[in-house]
């Protein structure tokens, strides 16, 4: 009998072109790549300089998402000369190398990690690499996705492979069932808080357990997406019937007989009984409260009902200095109730939390209410298709009536590479993934939380437990 294998081992084994040494390095075949305008230009230039062709152009899907404006009326003019040059060079590269591009006016445009699953471009069993750290998102579909730099993009374009070192495998088992108002965002924020911003460095995470099984596919995407904030170089889940149902009607999913064949194979994508993980972590979420970050690293998070922690309680010198620096940047003092923190901005968007289910969560909170007078609140849907669907479902009207800006799709204020930038001292409740210094604008302060929690903060004007709102089912 063969030795039981983890899902991660199965993925790597099935994609290994050849073993390169006895230290775990392999030449790894990559099924799909998603490209954006800002991390790809130097890779394409390298291809041009070396006179190389793209190995398999159909394996790459190109999407403009990072630098485009998100003004409510869609325009194709970029806000600055640099962005305009990136978009025009991207178009030129896609045309010259035969790669399909969703440009900013395409009805399928959006944030790459929202668009690729939406199109059925990512399927269970795949290994996907892309020049964006949140490529881990695809793990929710039973695909193993990870971010790479520009040099690796070039390597991948030229060879469809990467020189890859096998990771260790970690299983995170999530038990219990979530209370109303608590979401998958809170699960992943609690995990990052528990294991730290480098707690999963060197690992591939497999998520399992009843709380994961209960989640929708989109909710699982949020978890896999943010696993990189714990250092994981990939995070996924065994695909189940929910995943197959999610994919079946997608434009690029296999059809007919081919679909049946594919699903039969995908049912075998799980860790074998008795497979040994290098590390096991268990999380019980039955009593989990909505989480918010108070610092400048995603692991600096706490339940919304708690207080700003005191660096003096931290014994490790480097960690203590880190906490103090974070509090200074954030303008917070130890002991202050988190729910007293006033905000100036509310942002709902990003590859973490801007899918249709996220927008429905927001609508449940804000229906018939008004954004606080001192708050500027924005909703940037994850894709143009999500935007259309939200309009058809009547969600957009609810947002507009409540005083939210209803914008076009893009990465927007998650990283503020376009013109959606906060000013120094602004404080934003944000459904995004990183609360780094300067992430949403130099000197700006970010509090990460679920979309429902951002919605609640937008209405009250301060960090607020969304469970204090009467939520409809």
């Amino acid at each position: 009998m063969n030795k039981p294998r983890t899902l991660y081992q199965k993925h790597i084994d099935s994609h290994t072109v050849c073993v390169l040494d006895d230290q775990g390095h392999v030449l790894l075949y990559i099924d799909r790549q998603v490209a954006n305008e800002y991390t790809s230009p130097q890779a394409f230039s390298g291809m041009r300089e070396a006179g190389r062709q793209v190995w398999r152009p159909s394996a790459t899907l190109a999407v403009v998402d990072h630098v485009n404006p998100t003004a409510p009326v869609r325009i194709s003019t970029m806000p600055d000369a640099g962005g305009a040059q990136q978009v025009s060079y991207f178009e030129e590269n896609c045309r010259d190398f035969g790669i399909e591009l969703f440009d900013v006016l395409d009805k399928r445009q959006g944030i790459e990690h929202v668009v690729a699953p939406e199109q059925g471009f990512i399927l269970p069993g795949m290994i996907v690499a892309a020049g964006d750290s949140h490529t881990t998102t695809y793990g929710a579909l039973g695909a193993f996705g990870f971010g790479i730099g520009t040099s690796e993009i070039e390597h991948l374009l030229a060879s469809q492979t990467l020189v890859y070192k096998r990771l260790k495998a970690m299983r995170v088992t999530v038990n219990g069932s979530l209370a109303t108002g608590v979401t998958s965002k809170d699960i992943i924020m609690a995990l990052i808080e528990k294991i730290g911003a480098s707690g999963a460095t060197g690992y591939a995470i497999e998520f399992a357990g009843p709380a994961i099984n209960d989640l929708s596919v989109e909710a699982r995407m949020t978890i896999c997406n943010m696993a990189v904030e714990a250092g994981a170089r990939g995070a996924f889940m065994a695909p189940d019937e929910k995943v197959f149902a999610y994919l079946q009607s997608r434009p690029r999913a296999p059809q007919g007989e081919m679909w049946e064949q594919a699903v039969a194979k995908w049912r075998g994508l799980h860790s074998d009984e008795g497979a040994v993980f290098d590390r096991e972590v268990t999380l019980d979420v039955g009593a989990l409260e909505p989480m918010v970050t108070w610092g400048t690293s995603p692991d600096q998070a706490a339940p919304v009902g708690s207080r700003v922690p005191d660096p003096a309680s931290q014994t490790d010198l480097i960690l203590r200095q880190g906490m103090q620096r974070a509090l200074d940047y954030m303008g917070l003092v130890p002991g202050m109730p988190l729910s007293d923190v006033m905000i100036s901005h509310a942002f709902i968007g990003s590859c973490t939390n801007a899918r249709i289910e996220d927008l429905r969560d927001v609508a449940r909170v804000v229906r018939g209410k008004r954004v606080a007078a001192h708050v500027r609140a924005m909703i940037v849907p994850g894709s143009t298709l999500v935007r259309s669907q939200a309009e058809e479902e009547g969600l957009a009207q609810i947002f507009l009536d409540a005083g939210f800006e209803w914008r076009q799709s893009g990465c927007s204020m998650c990283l503020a590479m376009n013109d959606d930038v906060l000013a120094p001292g602004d404080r934003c409740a944000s459904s995004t993934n990183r609360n780094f210094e300067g992430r949403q604008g130099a000197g700006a302060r970010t509090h990460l939380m679920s979309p429902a929690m951002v919605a609640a903060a937008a209405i009250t004007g301060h960090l607020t437990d969304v469970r204090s709102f009467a939520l409809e089912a």
Partner: protein
Amino acid sequence: MQPFTTVIGSAAPFLASNIDTDVIMPKQFLKGIDRKGLDQGLFFDLRFLESGEPNPAFILNQPAWKDAAFLVVGPNFGCGSSREHAVWGLKQVGIRALIGTSFAGIFYDNCQRNGVVAIQVPEAQLKQIAGVISNAATAKINVNLPEQTIELADGAVIHFEIDQLRKQSLLLGLDAIGTTLQRTEQIRSFETRYLSENPWL
């Protein structure tokens, strides 16, 4: 890629934990289609005051470390965004190697691809190194990749581990793509078999 064998230079201590790539290379420097000008953007918010003048408190603005060839860094250095611009910027100001206890995965690979050596040492050794190089008079170190050693100004020699595959590539400054494409036939035959077994792909 510039080969790395033995490099002597000053090592700057920068020991905060979780220094992310947004801090190393802020967004406003990501708008190019080439690698130019990233030396200006490196650690921008830390290196420069609002007036645009160099911030004298920042380590790389201090005389002993102004021309540092090495950074001695805190845990989880390079976390966050995949932007390789962070490594390009480090390289452009003359940083040849980083020494720390842990590096974020994507950043670590980006260093490798640019000939910047990311050296991992245990915490006790990092403290030893940081203790010596934090003194301007003893900031110079000698990093010897063939021997896998770091020699400090007080004479101490610290051994470090590195994968042989990575080491060879750094020593020779190999073009990774060229090396991989020597296996073109192998990749083709893998791909043919793989796609026939997974025909929906």
